[in-house]
């Protein structure tokens, strides 16, 4: 009897899955939406002056764990636009076959010259198809570029940076409705309200509530942290209790 009921339940469940939307994306025809940070392939870009941004500083070549970037440094000469003396890369090869997509080369680039694309390279039939030469890299500039740039990544990891405000969140925020130090009794309600908002926002809000101009200042609100910690502890403890009642 146990067999029969359990089998019925299992079969009902498998039937239910039959009517769920299939998750398959038929790749070459339709493409899944890629996250803005998606890293897939590489591009070399031109700078604001319309010149090749890479100065051939070899930073990326040195950091690459797979040692797959080969750069031929060019002679220093004047830029045609600004007239300043700068370095050039005469040749730039990136062997995508051995790339582990670690994004370190992007991070170290001082000129934001090498950037990842969100689009994969087309599969090829020969090994050389995956070796990105300089031409290919500059051609990739037109593809959807990933969000990561050397400067962005560096800023994000700056140890002195108090609050990360990604470019996407630079929108109008509602006035902060709660100060950072909250009494324990009022916490769950406020927390619920907060759950609806992006993670980075409450953080930004708190900073804003105390000093509206702190968004750009590099000064860190030091007093805030211990209070934050203890209230969080409570929040973590309070959350499961609230959750258990749900089902």
């Amino acid at each position, binding site marked *: 009897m*146990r067999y029969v009921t359990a*089998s019925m*339940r*299992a079969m009902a*469940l*498998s039937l239910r*899955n039959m009517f769920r939307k299939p*998750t398959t994306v038929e790749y070459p025809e339709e493409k899944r939406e*890629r*996250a803005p*940070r*998606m*890293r897939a392939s590489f591009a070399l870009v031109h700078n604001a002056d319309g010149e090749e941004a890479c100065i051939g500083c070899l*930073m990326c070549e*040195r*950091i690459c*764990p797979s040692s797959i970037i080969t750069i031929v440094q060019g002679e220093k000469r004047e830029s045609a636009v600004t007239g300043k003396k700068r370095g050039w890369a005469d040749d730039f090869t990136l062997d995508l076959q051995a790339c*582990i*997509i*670690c*994004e*370190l080369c992007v*991070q*170290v680039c001082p000129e934001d010259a090498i950037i*990842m694309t969100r689009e994969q390279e087309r599969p090829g039939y020969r090994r050389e198809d995956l070796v990105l030469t300089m031409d290919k890299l500059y051609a990739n500039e037109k593809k959807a570029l990933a969000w990561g740039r050397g400067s962005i*990544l*560096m800023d*994000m*990891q*700056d*140890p*002195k*940076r*108090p*609050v*990360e405000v*990604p470019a*996407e*969140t630079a929108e109008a925020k509602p006035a902060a409705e709660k100060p950072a130090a909250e009494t324990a009794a009022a916490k769950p309600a406020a927390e619920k309200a*907060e*759950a609806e908002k*992006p*993670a*980075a*926002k*409450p*953080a*930004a809000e*708190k*900073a804003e509530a105390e000093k509206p101009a702190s968004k750009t200042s590099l000064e*860190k609100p030091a007093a*805030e*942290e211990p209070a*934050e910690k203890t209230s*969080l*502890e409570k929040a*973590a*403890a309070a*959350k*499961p209790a609230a959750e258990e009642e749900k089902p």
Partner: protein
Amino acid sequence: MTLERPDRADPYLDLDEYEPEADLMVLNFGPQHPSTHGVFRVVMYLDGETIVKAVPYAGYLHRGVEKLCEKLTYAQITPIVDKNDYVAPMFNEQAVNMAFEALTGTEVPIRAQYIRTIVGEIQRVASHLLWLGTFAMDLGGAIGGGTSVFMWCFREREMILDLFEHLTGCRFHYNTHTLGGNRHDIPAGWAEKVHATLGHIAQRVDEYEAILDHPIFKARTEGVGVISAQLALDLGLTGPLLRASGVDHDLRRDAPYNIYDQLDVQVMTDTGGDCAARYRVRVREMRESIRIARALVDNVPPGPICGTKPIKLPVQTRVKDGQVYVALETPRGELGTYVIGGGDNRNASPYRLKIRPPSLHALSALPYVLPGHGVSDAVAILGSLDPIMGEADR
């Protein structure tokens, strides 16, 4: 639980002996076999279909990662060790970076610790989901119900990978941890995505439990591959395997790192020590991880995400000497990293980096557990140990 000298016969003592007069069939199980989880070989001595002796051979996926790490600098190691436990890469990078931080005395900002905890717990869910799927496939076959569960688990796991794609840009091998913190901050709107995904997965986990609460599943797992608590301790098993044997041990609670000392992590234990107990422990851990991650993700404190200068030059971190062992709790157990400073590249590489993979220890249980079981059970047992060969062989 005290540690005593085991009084049972050690199956490793007579591993290479084979008595032809015993009239046993030698079955080379793997490395080219559908269910050896990567590449792994067990030589089984069969009497009929009953295993008399089992000799595991690891090393088919050896890539020399530890040696490679001696040549690379501290900045370059993180993306390399990512590939060890390819089912839960977050933990690999976190492990080495925690070791480097301990070695250099770097402080990790609180925000980075929160992010590390959250991504770790989400990754744990993903890893257990994958385990559940492959375990069902081991029991149910490539054309059968097992594959259905496998596909469903992967469907949900994909959603978690989507989360990581939004956070780090990669679905796998993220390279998001760095010395002193994290490389990627939480993007806007990520917390809602986490809530939506994990809430969804929590429901689906109930569904899988319902579909696997079936007499066939019970018959295949209950009493199969029993590892006693003593044996588990003797072999150095950790993680869900140890907890399924009834030993209440979890590094997240017992040797807290990150912000786990502020969290109330419920350690899931079970007493059976068999495949069914391991299944129960992992499913409960999935729920617990979902709970932790959801509780934390709304409360990430503001602040920097990296405690030191971000990576710019490969050789910017130099450690003259000193050694450190750091362990953390991965979905498979204790992942230890032992680093000795002062190596190549004028001290910018470790002199030695040793990784203690939980999977290797799990596999060492096979000669003890397999004898007496049939070939079908061998597959179930191997699956329930959740070995990742990339990690075991390194």
